[in-house]
């Protein structure tokens, strides 16, 4: 098996890969938006937590919708 040529098996817990994805998303967005670099770490942390909480809330809402309404 050759790296970057053959795909890798990622198992059933693939949704956890959303966590580093959201971190990178927060980091890149805040890197271009923050005015002074020393505010970057806190801003990134705040946005990362915000995204994760938002996605969790959306997931819970859709789960309840499918479970009890649909």
């Amino acid at each position: 098996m050759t790296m970057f040529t053959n795909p890798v098996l990622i198992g059933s817990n693939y949704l956890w890969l959303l966590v580093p994805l959201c971190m990178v998303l927060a980091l890149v967005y805040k890197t271009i938006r923050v005015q002074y670099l020393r505010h970057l770490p806190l801003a990134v942390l705040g946005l990362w937590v915000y995204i994760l909480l938002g996605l969790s809330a959306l997931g819970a809402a859709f789960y309840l919708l499918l479970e009890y309404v649909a």
Partner: protein
Amino acid sequence: MAKSGNVNVVWGVVAGVLAWVIPGAGHAFLGRWIRGAIIFLCINGLFWSGVYVGGVFTVDPIKEKWWYMAQMCTGASGVYSLSRQAAQRAALVAEDRGLPPETPAERAWGRRNVSSSDVQQTVDRLAAEKGLALVDKGDQVARAYSGIAGMLNILCIFDALMLGLMGRRGEPVPPRSPQEDRP
């Protein structure tokens, strides 16, 4: 110290093009080295993580057109991955037809038709046999990672373009007063 001036179209265009070719290079060109380095590491890391998970067919201009358009926004990484995918595709077709491997000149001039739908079935079958086809769930992760890297670079390209057009170079100097220094 950040310097601003009149509208500078050349700087804007150069910064925008550099930001597409190498993520982060546009910001580095404008004197924002740390931001450029962060963007470079994050966007390339995200893209190549996606290619690592999905393999060579992560970039697929035929079956996944929209993801492909997003992936091409990463510049050199996307173009290089596309060339790897095309070479692998041509190699699979050549092997199936009993032909010698396609030369770079043939690939450049498109001598062998490897893009039609009947060829796609051959490529799909051979890719699955050789373990090159994207696997379930892994394909979603691979395309999400690599596609989102491209979409993030669109933000960075736009930012570099605007900063260049406004003639802003270097990092802004933080104020000394704590009241003004708020995130």
